[in-house]
């Protein structure tokens, strides 16, 4: 488990002023979970990544791994303790003149682990990332996805409890991205890792993250489980993850629906139609399976067959079926009903 508390990072600017890149970020990633940190370029993601991987010292705040603050350490103590956090770089950053095996073995050799133990452990690590047969390959002989797997194996060599993946799937093709994300999920479950996934790819968030934190201008805008955020009407992350095209007004009433935080009655359209005597038109939908459940955003048009339906009654019913609804547009008929 990693707890980042009130993390600030300032840099001196050339004009003598101070630039604050991180303005008090607090973030907790429990064991066996993946938190995605998202945000536009210049939001402070890279600086946050450097602070978490202990390559930069924060100006203030703390980074606790299993209760111990690592942000203030330096010298030999830092060297010893930093193994609690494994880092996977964007470009895999393998040493080009060493084989896959040698790259993974390097942290162990540096630590002074006995050769027999290194052989055994590196074998296991390459096996767990599915590259046992490529141990003697040099990075230039591996594909982007394979290189990234070696990078992950190396990051795990010192048995960290936290894994930081800084844009680990950027530049990979869709298949390689899928396999890396599946690997991260597998490692999360296998080793109970707290994984921080720094990314600008919403698709990666949708497919791998348990929780999301959005930062912008060095500040945390919103944070929560993916399902919670998706199901929150008006959530920016929800909009980014499940974008819907604006549509022509249709029907008497237009509703924006989100679901994912509660169990969903999958036959909700028929239930609502029958009970309220309305026709439901699906205008736009972006629904995917996130974890065990369906999550998504939808836009529906509601047409009243005989008489207008009470808006609150309808919304209440949708809520009971596992759907959060907000009204987008309504026609005069509805106004009268309300």
């Amino acid at each position, binding site marked *: 488990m990693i707890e980042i508390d009130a993390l600030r990072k300032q840099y001196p600017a050339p004009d003598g002023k101070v630039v604050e890149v991180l303005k008090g970020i607090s973030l907790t990633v429990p064991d066996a979970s993946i938190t995605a940190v998202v945000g536009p370029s210049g939001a402070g993601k890279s600086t946050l990544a450097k602070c978490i*991987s202990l390559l930069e010292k924060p100006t203030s705040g703390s980074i606790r791994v299993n209760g111990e603050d690592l942000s203030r350490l330096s010298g030999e103590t830092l060297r010893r303790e*930093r193994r609690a956090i494994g880092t996977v770089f964007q470009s895999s*950053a393998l040493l080009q003149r060493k084989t896959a095996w040698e790259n993974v073995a390097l942290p162990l050799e540096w630590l002074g682990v006995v050769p027999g133990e290194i052989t055994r452990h590196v074998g296991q690590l390459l096996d767990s990332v599915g590259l046992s047969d490529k141990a003697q390959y*040099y990075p*230039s*002989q591996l594909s982007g996805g394979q290189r990234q797997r070696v990078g992950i194996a190396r990051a795990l060599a010192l048995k960290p409890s936290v894994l930081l993946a800084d844009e680990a799937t950027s530049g990979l093709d869709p298949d390689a991205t899928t396999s890396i994300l599946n690997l991260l999920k597998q490692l999360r479950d296998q080793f109970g890792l707290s994984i921080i996934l720094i990314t600008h790819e919403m698709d990666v968030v949708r497919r791998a993250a348990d929780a999301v934190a959005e930062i912008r201008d060095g500040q945390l805008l919103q944070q929560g489980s993916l399902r919670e955020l998706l199901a929150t009407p008006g959530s920016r992350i929800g909009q980014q993850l499940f974008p819907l095209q604006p549509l022509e007004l249709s029907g008497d009433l237009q509703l924006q629906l989100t679901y994912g935080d509660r169990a969903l009655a999958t036959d909700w359209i028929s239930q609502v139609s029958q009970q309220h005597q309305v026709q439901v038109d699906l205008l736009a939908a972006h629904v995917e399976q996130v974890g065990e459940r369906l999550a998504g955003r939808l836009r529906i048009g509601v047409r009243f067959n005989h008489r207008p339906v009470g808006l609150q009654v309808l919304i209440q019913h949708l809520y009971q079926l596992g759907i959060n609804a907000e009204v987008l547009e309504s026609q005069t008929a509805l106004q009268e009903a309300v």
Partner: protein
Amino acid sequence: MKPLADVISQDTPWSQIHTLMLPAYLETWLMVGIVMLFVVTLGGLLGVVLFNTSRHGLFPRPAVNRTLSWIVNMGRSLPFLVLMAAIIPFTFWLTGTTIGIPAAVIPMVVAGTPFFARLLENALRELPSEVTAVGLVSGGSTWQIIVHAQLSEALPAIVAAIVLNVISMIEYSAIAGTIGAGGIGYLAVVYGYQRFDNHIMVATIVVLIATIQLVQFIGDRLVAALQHAKGSYSS
């Protein structure tokens, strides 16, 4: 009475050239060898410190970096002939002589060290910044990161730098011939220039060209072998 051309031309017969050329050639390599030993050690150390005191390095020290950089630039700004003359007192103090191989080795080391330091620093600067970062997050000590990550990754570039330096040192050894350093430079000056021995002059030129070509050829092959066998950043 002999024709004038015969009086001023005292060309060593071609069949005798090797008796002069071979010992001189070995002296040249002896000088270059000794010098390169110091240059690679001292210049290598200086280059590593230069890189690692920069803001991309392991122990950024801007003031130290600027000072070292200034010293390196100073060492590189003097033409070798001027440098050689300028540091004669220092050379004499160190070796007790101002002529011969010992007297040539000192200015050659003084000139070659900053050159190699800059080449090595550049080789390290060409590496992706992640190389040092990987070393740090993998828990390496400063020494481990420098040797196993930085220098090991930059090896092809370092070999290329050594080749470049060897060629410069062969050139400098010829210039050092002017202070009686020995080697083929001395041969060219004393026989070719002062005694109008055209045969020696031609032989010296041929040997120098062949040597430089050979060194460069071997160096290029070595660099290519190091890159191809184990991948490279440019590929």
